[in-house]
């Protein structure tokens, strides 16, 4: 779950990281300041300044006018419902700092640049020597001296080094404490008075760990929400509620489309492959989804019912790669039970079922009993998708 900038700054502030004084407003009347301010649209996208979402103001009247224009506007397809109004900060230096995960090393990763306010990915391509990366062991913790070593490597010293390294350590604390996948400050600025501020912040939290942090809502007013930049449809919200029915596996990540072939597909990469294969053969998916990690029969059933109940859906294709941590028979139970509860014939409704792997013998028994067309691992995902689309076309 990506946090808005003002939410990220609440976490930074609570951890002791200085942020510019400011407040978030949803109506212009809430604005009352005589300081030089910057008005920032609160959106879950990057590059807001380039898109006109960050504006600098020289007086209250100008701030109100610009806030009025931003509130209720749309930037990159997203509605601006809130703006953050902060005091402007004059600075002499800016840095980029982030804590993320290195998926290859399987460790948290510190990223530091002596240039802030720029895209780190672009800088890493053009000047990789300017991007400092350092991973650390969670089990050993992250000490103050490690933070200083990383930052001192390129010459920073004195009080600035102490302040910036302390902030880096506080960022790591936030990262570990709240099960974040990213804590980024860009830029972290140093003023002439040697004060340090986080001018912009970006924090992503692990959705699957949100249940461990009720204080996010009670203390910081950050409530769980689905989706990222895109606002989920009602259909997608219902699907997310189904995935939340229990902790077992995943039966969700649904994105709504408007086709006639419902998809129960799984495995992340295999889901994308299946979806693309259906499109390649001229099929029209009603949805994208991901199932995996051995979801409960109930979750698979409810998700199947939801997707099949979508207007215009004629049939369903169930396609996964060879599964090891998901059981074929349990998925089959969920799908077939859903169709029976909808009063439909499984053999007519399922265009194809292709899930080889764990407990496939039991799964195939279920499919045979209900006369469902299925295929084993000798048939590729691509071919299964082709058969599914052909079947829908034949009966159209």
């Amino acid at each position, binding site marked *: 779950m990506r946090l808005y900038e003002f939410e990220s700054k609440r976490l930074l502030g609570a951890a002791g990281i200085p942020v510019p004084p400011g407040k978030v407003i949803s109506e212009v009347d809430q604005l009352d300041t005589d300081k030089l301010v910057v008005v920032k649209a609160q959106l879950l996208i990057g590059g807001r300044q380039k898109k006109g979402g960050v504006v600098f103001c020289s007086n209250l009247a100008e701030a109100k006018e610009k806030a009025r224009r931003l509130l209720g506007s749309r930037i990159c397809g997203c509605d601006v419902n809130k703006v953050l109004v902060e005091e402007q900060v004059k600075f002499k230096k800016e840095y980029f700092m982030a804590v993320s995960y290195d998926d290859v090393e399987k460790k948290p990763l510190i990223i530091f640049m002596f240039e802030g306010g720029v895209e780190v990915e672009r800088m890493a391509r053009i000047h990789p020597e300017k991007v400092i990366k350092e991973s650390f062991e969670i089990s050993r913790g992250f000490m103050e001296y490690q933070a200083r070593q990383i930052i001192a490597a390129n010459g920073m010293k004195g009080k600035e080094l102490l302040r910036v390294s302390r902030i880096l350590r506080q960022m790591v604390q936030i990262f570990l404490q709240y099960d974040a996948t990213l804590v980024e400050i860009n830029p972290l600025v140093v003023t002439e008075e040697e004060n340090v501020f986080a001018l912009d912040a970006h924090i992503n939290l692990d959705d699957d760990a949100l249940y461990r942090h009720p204080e996010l809502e009670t203390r910081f007013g950050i409530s769980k929400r689905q989706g990222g930049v895109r606002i989920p449809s009602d259909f997608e919200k219902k699907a997310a509620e189904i995935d939340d029915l229990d902790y077992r596996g995943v039966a969700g990540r649904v994105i709504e489309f408007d086709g006639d072939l419902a998809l129960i597909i799984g495995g992340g990469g295999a889901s994308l492959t299946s979806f693309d294969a259906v499109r390649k053969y001229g099929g029209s998916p009603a949805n994208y989804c991901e199932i995996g990690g051995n979801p409960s029969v109930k979750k698979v059933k409810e998700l199947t019912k939801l997707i099949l109940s979508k207007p215009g859906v004629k049939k369903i294709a169930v396609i996964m790669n060879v599964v090891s941590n998901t059981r074929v028979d349990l998925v089959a139970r969920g799908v077939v039970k859903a169709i029976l509860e909808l009063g439909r014939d499984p053999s007519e409704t399922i265009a194809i079922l292709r899930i080889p792997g764990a407990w496939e013998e039991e799964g195939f028994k*279920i499919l045979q009993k209900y006369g469902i067309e299925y295929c084993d691992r000798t048939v590729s995902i691509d071919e299964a998708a082709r058969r599914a689309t052909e079947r829908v076309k034949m009966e159209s």
Partner: protein
Amino acid sequence: MGTFIRVKIDAQKCLGIKKSGECVKICPVNIFEAHGDVPLVITENEDECTLCRLCLEKCPSGAVSIHKLYEK
């Protein structure tokens, strides 16, 4: 009631919760629940049965049986 799996407890053989209750304790998907001294099958959960057989192995009196309805 289960569409694919039927779980039965033979009341004649069952020792009850106080003397056993092993099925309730061991099932990882909550097929069983205790009603006083009597273990009962939660029929809406029957299709979650993973065929792990832990209830069969732990029941000291062999009172539990599991039936795959799709094999009939």
